[in-house]
């Protein structure tokens, strides 16, 4: 529901970083999105298409999204396990309920690629 807003934040971060790195056009952005984040990859792609029309991106720019499953780690026995449907934070080995989320909350820009406007001369 708020993917447009997330995309606006992403574009803001990228604009600042691109200026800092003297990049004129961005061709590719790689996001990592956990299953426990409230962002849906399809909606992010749709929002990206809207922002792609802005000057920061080249017309062929792509948004690549890597999804991460929700994983828990039992603080009692150390077992790592996938958390089904984001709902069952109970250790399958020792039934421990003190479970730390070690993956699934990600919502970050991993990297991006862009052109600096200089010709390749090497």
């Amino acid at each position, binding site marked *: 529901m708020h993917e447009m807003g997330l995309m606006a934040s992403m574009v803001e971060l990228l604009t600042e970083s691109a200026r800092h790195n003297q990049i004129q056009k961005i061709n590719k952005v790689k*996001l990592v999105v956990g299953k426990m984040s409230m962002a849906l990859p399809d909606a992010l792609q749709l929002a990206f298409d809207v922002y792609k029309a802005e000057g920061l991106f080249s017309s062929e720019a792509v948004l690549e999204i890597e999804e991460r499953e929700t994983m828990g780690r039992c603080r009692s026995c150390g077992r790592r396990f996938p958390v089904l449907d*984001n*709902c069952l934070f109970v250790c399958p080995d020792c039934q421990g309920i003190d479970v730390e989320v070690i993956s699934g909350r990600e919502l970050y820009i991993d990297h991006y690629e862009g*052109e600096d406007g200089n010709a390749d001369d090497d």
Partner: protein
Amino acid sequence: MTIKVELQTPILARNEETAEEIRYLCQENNIYLVNIMSSPGAGKTTLLEKALGYLSKELRTAVIEGDIATTRDADRISAHGVEAVQLNTHGACHLDARMVYQALQKLEWSQLDLILIENIGNLVCPAEFNLGEDLRVVLLSTTEGNDKIVKYPVMFRDAQMLVLNKVDLLPYTDFSKAEMEQDLAGLNPGMEIFYVSARLEQGVEEWADRLIKLVKRSAAEHENLGQS
């Protein structure tokens, strides 16, 4: 020439920074900040209206009202003699830290012990946005059905307290308290649960008492830290 930049930056990095500023500001002024979330119509404003009578006896309290467009909720709170700041999100489905920071500027910090934030009615988006709060409360009403817990697990995992509202209507719904407790045992076993009917003012005093205790305990801890 193609350049690859390893950014490794959270999309909500700015929100996190602002949330940290709010946390700092509240700690400095000994203010306890509570983020109250639910779906639309679960009874957030009614619960606050009824609880403010108890809270105001013990604590200097203000309310930040998130609303998409109107001032109706803030008007309802102000009618109880409690300061209310209205935040209109103009369509946005959640409050973010920047909005709360702006609302805080309208309050007299030295005159407050507790600020209650009534978030936008929505069980999805508000879960993502850290507001620098000390406590997250999620309100669920019996008429919504107990399946909301597993349908919106992140909201119910991240909150420390659940208030089940409209318990007076339990006999007229298919809401299963047993299933709710079983689902929470897997999702958030440490969650505190309160059963209330805000409309009939049942259970509201217990909830308010618990909040008062938490606020006073936090203030006492803060004072001890200051002395050591």
